[in-house]
């Protein structure tokens, strides 16, 4: 009888061997050398999604390797199992299935994964959001937008919306009055994606949006480095809300607004402490003084 420690080592070794075998099979499929896949999705210590990501690392979504893998999974019936397990009672199964659907870019699973965005377990919600971000496309982006409207602009949802949104999606949503509740989130996502086509809608939002929207559009314009937005961002330095003023200062630094040094100097006497502090750092940064990155953390 092996001791408990020895048994643990043997089990870990077996798991590593299993992973290695599956990775080899996936690599063969991705390279077009094989068209057969057979393994147990529920196998312990077998994170198929991670293996798929590993095999397709460095390749764009929709590449030939992705397509071969997706087709082989479909042919082998694993895709159906994945979709079935998205409704499994165990959170762990749902997470794994969502991860695999994301790694394979299974667009047909979007509606089932969207349902997981309102799951009770935070880990399931996060896995679903990440899967939708990996799959991308307008259906995924719509699902993420619905989740943002329902649950608020959580960090994961925002980042994944930026990943998922196809061209011109964020811009059109920013210009749609019916989506008014999510404009701030859309602005942040457009900024994260560095969407230059979104500059005009963002300027519109900065001119007529709510407090949150003005702050978000300022940040986004800074990330995009839209030089054309410099006067509007500088005007936001005189905004009535301190968060907007602070965002404008940060954006101005990104835009290289040396010409507005006088306005920044005047903000050193701002009634709000955060704004005063940010203005001080901004002036230092613009004058090429060293400012450590942590000083620039969002609030």
């Amino acid at each position, binding site marked *: 009888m092996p001791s408990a420690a020895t048994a643990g080592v043997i089990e870990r070794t077996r798991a590593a061997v299993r992973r290695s075998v599956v990775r080899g099979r996936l690599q063969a499929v991705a390279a077009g050398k094989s068209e057969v896949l057979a393994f147990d999705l529920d196998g312990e210590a077998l994170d198929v999604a991670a293996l798929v990501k590993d095999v397709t690392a460095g390749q*764009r979504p929709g590449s030939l390797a992705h397509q071969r893998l997706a087709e082989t999974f479909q042919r082998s019936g694993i895709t159906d199992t994945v979709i079935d397990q998205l409704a499994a009672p165990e959170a762990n199964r749902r997470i794994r299935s969502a991860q695999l659907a994301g790694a394979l870019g299974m667009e047909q699973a979007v509606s089932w994964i969207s349902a997981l965005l309102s799951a009770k377990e935070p880990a399931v919600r996060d896995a679903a959001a990440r899967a939708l971000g990996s799959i991308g496309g307008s259906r995924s982006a719509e699902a993420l937008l619905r989740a943002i409207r329902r649950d608020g602009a959580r960090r994961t949802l925002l980042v994944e919306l930026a990943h998922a949104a*196809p061209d011109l999606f964020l811009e059109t949503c920013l210009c749609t009055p019916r989506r008014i509740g999510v404009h701030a989130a859309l602005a942040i996502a457009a900024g994260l994606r560095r969407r230059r086509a979104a500059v005009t809608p963002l300027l519109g939002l900065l001119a007529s949006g709510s407090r949150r929207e003005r702050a978000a559009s300022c940040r986004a314009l800074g990330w995009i480095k839209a030089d054309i937005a410099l*006067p509007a961002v500088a005007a936001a330095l005189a905004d009535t809300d301190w968060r907007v003023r602070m965002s404008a200062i940060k954006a101005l630094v990104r835009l290289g607004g040396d010409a507005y040094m006088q306005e920044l100097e005047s903000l050193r006497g701002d009634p709000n402490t955060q704004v005063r502090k940010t203005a001080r750092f901004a002036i230092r940064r613009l004058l090429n003084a060293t400012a450590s990155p942590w000083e620039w953390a969002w609030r």
Partner: protein
Amino acid sequence: MRPENQLGPREVLSGTGRRSPAPTFRQHPENGRPAYHDMVDRVAVLERAAVLFSLPEGVLRALARRMRRVTVASGEMIVCQGDPGDTIFFIEEGRVRVVIEQPPSVVTVAVLTTGDIFGEGPWLLKRPQQASVYAQQDCTVLAIDRQSMQTVLGRDRTVFENLTRVAEHRFRTFADTTVQAAWGTLFKEATVVGVYSPKGGSGGTCISLNVVGSLARRYPGQVLLLDLDFPYTHAALLAGLVPTTCLARLAQVPSEAFEEALLSAILYHSGGPMILAGSLRPEEAEEVTPELVTRAIGILRKTFRYIIIDLGVTISDTTLALLDLTQHIVLVAAPELSAVKSAADAIDILLRLGTPQDRLSVVLNNRTMKPAVTRSAVERMLNRRVDIEVAFDYSRPDQAAVNGEILSITNPRSEIARGAEALAALLDTHHGREHPTGHVAGRSDMTTDVSGRA
């Protein structure tokens, strides 16, 4: 102090002075399924696209259902050059302008109208957007993303293959148009050719010098070799000339005297070619900046017919600036494993930088009697054809260097001279003044073997 050419904060916030009023982008319907008459319109737009001609109506309807109809205000950017992209746009109504920015030029390469498509390049060719697209008037486009397209079309590879062909053709045409418009081939200015050898000892300088000799026989006094093979530039020495000044030393010359100083620094070879040394001492190489090179090329282009630049081995900022300035790139590789590997990497970089395939020529220079790597193996590794193969020329190149001769002028029957002549002919076919657009029938078959085996 506020920059003068920018709008004031009040103007921007009040909306006055902006190019177009909000909303600049609108989606119809804002959400939900399209209505029946809307579907009919969408399918009609898809049916007009030649690439989707073979699709059954059911598939077209599925595509139409997943499309987003977006209205774009006049003057707004729809697609930004250099961005990644995952959407194909079908123009339902209106006109868009396709623009490529290649500093210092901005070139409008196409105007697309109802029924045309754009945005297909990035996800089919795996490159960033080649051009920006602006709405020239208020227009309506139907957008479909990659994921929807793949889901609907599934395994039907025909459409993807057709789309890829369209994207490749368009990429080449746009790149060609940009090069011609940006560098004034239509205005009879010099053709700038870069000779790049990714590995030292491949014979890049020898090929440069001899191709200059061959071209100079055709156009005496109109061909210049700019030697930027840093840090040691020896082209003038190999041609039996002794330079007294160089491009690097012109960095401090005031702008009003620059042109005269530049032209007087050029050495004249009795056989016809002219040579301008990049530097005389290794430490002077740092003085040759991208700005200096751009200024110099701008002047030289008006004076010569061909400017051949020996780019050497390294990829520096100056090399990258020069790659932007060149209309043709000649890549010299020796049939050795390391040289071919370096050449494959270099080709990959050049293509990523946007060099069109037909503006890149590969010269295989045999430095030994029996090369270790065969031509077919080289072509396999490079994943493209070798345009010109130069056969082993025994000790003639070394002897010519000792005598200060250019083989293509003194011994036209030598292998190097024959290779240089073939390369000169290839360049002339692409960039000769008789064909100002550079389009020559049958140029895709232009592969020359001067190794004596053909």
